[in-house]
C-alpha cells in the first residue's frame, strides 16, 4: 500500500518525532549549496536522534551539522563538500579521526543504488568504479558493498553490481507540495526522485503548499506522487543558507561563517550549535537569530534576477 491521501501536513517537530528514529538510515536531499534539507536536519539535531547512517550523493551542509552534533555513525555517499566553500569540515575531521565510517561510492553509483530501491530490485548494475580503489574497500557491517559479475551476454566483461539503497526515511526540501503529499521539484532534481521513491518513509519540507487542484491541473509538473510521501512540512526558507531554485540564492556570508566555525571545531562549533540550533525552538527562530528580513529579501531578489 502506498501512503494515505491526507493527514500529512505537520510541523517539522511532529514529522521528525514520528518518522526518524535512533539507528535509522536517513536519505539526504539537496546537493552542495542547493536545496539542502536544513530545517529538517536542524530538527533532527534538536531531537538528538542517534547512530544515524546518512546516505545521499553530495553530502553537504546538513550532513556536516548532523555529524558535528555527534549523531552520525556512518555516511554512504559520493562526496562531502560545499564546493567553493570547501570541504564538509566536521565530516572530514570525524573521518580522519576514525569516529565515522565513510563508505565511498561515485555519484552515479549512489543514484544507481537508489534506482534499484525505487524499482523494488535487490541491486543495480553499473560500469563505473571499475579499476578504481572504490572497489578495494571492505564492508563495515558484513554487507558486501558491491559484487562483480561476468556479463552473461559478453563473457570476459566485468560488471559491477551495487546493492539497493532503501533509506528508512528521507528528508528533502522542495519548492512545492500539496496536502496529499504530491511533490514538485523545480530545476535540477539531482538524486532525489530515485531516493524518495526508494525510501520507506519520506518527510518533505516545502517553500509553499499548493492546492491539490493546482497539482491536478498540471500533472506534468509533479516530480513524485503522494503515494511515496508521509509528511509535508510548510517551511519557507527551509534550505537556508543553501539555495532554493526560483525562490532564493544561497547566503555566501552565512556559509562562510559556518565553514569558519566548522573548520576550527571545538568550542566555537559547540557555541554555533547551541546558539543557532539547540537554542532555537523552530527553524523560524533560527532564521530570526542568524539573519535578517533585509538579507533574505536580498537573496530572493538575487535569485529572481537569474531566472
Amino acid at each position: 500500500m502506498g501512503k494515505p491521501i491526507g493527514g500529512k501536513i505537520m510541523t517539522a517537530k511532529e514529522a521528525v518525532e514520528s518518522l526518524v528514529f535512533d539507528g535509522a538510515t536517513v536519505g539526504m536531499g539537496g546537493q552542495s549549496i542547493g536545496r539542502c534539507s536544513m530545517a529538517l536536519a536542524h530538527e533532527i539535531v534538536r531531537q538528538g536522534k542517534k547512530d544515524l547512517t546518512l546516505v545521499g550523493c553530495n553530502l553537504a551542509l546538513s550532513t556536516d551539522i548532523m555529524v558535528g552534533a555527534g549523531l552520525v555513525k556512518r555516511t554512504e555517499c559520493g562526496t562531502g563538500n560545499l564546493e567553493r566553500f570547501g570541504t564538509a569540515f566536521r565530516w572530514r575531521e570525524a573521518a580522519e579521526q576514525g569516529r565515522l565510517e565513510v563508505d565511498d561510492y561515485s555519484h552515479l553509483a549512489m543514484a544507481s543504488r537508489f534506482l534499484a530501491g525505487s524499482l523494488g530490485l535487490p541491486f543495480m548494475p553499473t560500469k563505473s568504479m571499475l579499476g578504481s580503489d572504490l572497489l578495494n574497500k571492505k564492508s563495515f557491517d558484513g554487507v558486501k558493498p558491491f559484487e562483480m559479475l561476468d556479463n552473461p551476454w559478453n563473457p570476459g566483461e566485468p560488471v559491477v553490481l551495487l546493492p539497493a539503497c532503501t533509506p528508512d526515511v528521507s528528508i528533502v526540501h522542495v519548492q512545492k507540495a500539496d496536502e496529499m503529499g504530491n511533490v514538485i521539484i523545480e530545476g535540477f532534481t539531482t538524486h532525489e526522485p530515485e531516493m524518495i521513491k526508494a525510501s520507506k518513509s519520506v518527510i518533505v519540507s516545502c517553500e509553499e503548499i499548493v492546492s491539490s487542484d493546482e497539482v491536478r491541473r498540471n500533472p506534468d509538473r509533479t516530480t513524485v506522487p503522494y503515494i511515496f510521501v508521509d509528511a509535508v512540512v510548510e517551511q519557507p526558507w527551509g534550505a537556508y543558507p543553501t539555495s532554493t531554485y526560483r525562490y532564493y540564492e544561497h547566503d555566501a556570508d552565512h556559509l562562510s561563517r559556518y565553514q569558519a566555525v566548522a573548520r576550527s571545531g571545538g568550542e566555537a562549533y559547540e557555541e554555533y550549535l547551541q546558539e543557532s540550533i539547540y537554542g532555537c525552538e523552530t527553524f523560524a527562530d533560527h532564521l530570526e537569530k542568524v539573519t535578517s528580513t533585509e538579507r533574505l529579501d536580498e537573496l530572493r531578489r538575487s535569485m529572481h534576477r537569474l531566472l
Partner: protein
Amino acid sequence: MTEYALDELMVVEASRHIEDGNIVMVGTGLPMVASLFALKSHAPNMCYVVETGPVAPEVIPTPTSVSDPRVMYRAVRFGSLLDALGGVLQRGLADVAFLGGAQIDQFANVNSTVIGDYDRPKVRFPGSGGANDLASHAKKILIITRHEKRRFPERCDFITSPGYIDGPQGRKNAGLPQPYPDISVITDLTVMSIDKSKGRLRVDKLMPGVSLDQVRENTLFEPLVAPEVVTVDPPTRAELRILRDEVDPDGTYLKGRE
C-alpha cells in the same frame, strides 16, 4: 604581445580540446570557465550537461556551484543526476569531461579521496562525486591544475578516478568501457597527454617560457616526452576579450590578471 595570467592561459588551452557539437560534462571552477569560453568562441553548438540534471543551459556567467541557477538558465531540460551521469555519461554520449584532484599519477589516475590509509586517513578529501563516473565513461578527460610537485606522485595513494591504472592494458583489464579516453593534464607548466600505447602521461607541450627541466623538477614521476615538444600558443587578444568580458566578467575565477 598581449599580457595574460597563467590561469587565463590554462583555460584557453583547455578550451582548445573542446570541439563544436561536443557534449561536455562540467562542474564549476576553471573547467566551467574553459568550457564556457569554448562555447562563446569556437564551439557555439557545444552542449553543457550539468551533473545535477540540466541539459544545454545558456549559462549566465559566472556559476559557482552545480546547483547554481546560472547553470539552469534556459536549459532545454531539467533532469536528474541519473539522467546526466547514467543517461548521458554512462550511455556513452559525453565527449569531454573535466576532473580535478589532489594527486594525478603517471598513469593519469586521479585521487580525490584520501592521503594515507582509507580506513584511517591522514587527510580526507571530499571523495569521488561524479569524478569516477566521468573518468570511467567520457571520451576525453581534461584536468586543469596548478603544477605542484606533491600533486604528481608516481602512484596515487587512492585511485578515485581511473586513468590508465597501471599501463596500456589497465583499462582493458579492469573492464572499463571502450573507447578508452584521451586524457590531457593542463598545468601552468605543461600539457601532458596520455600515450595510449604506453598508458602513461607524456609531455606534449610546454607553456611559453617553461623548460622541460622545470616540468621534471616539479613532477615526482618521470613523464614521457613527445618527439617534438611544442609551445602552447598564448591566448589572442580576441580570446582574452571574450574570456574577460563574456565568460568571467567579475573575475570570480580568473583573479590574477596582469
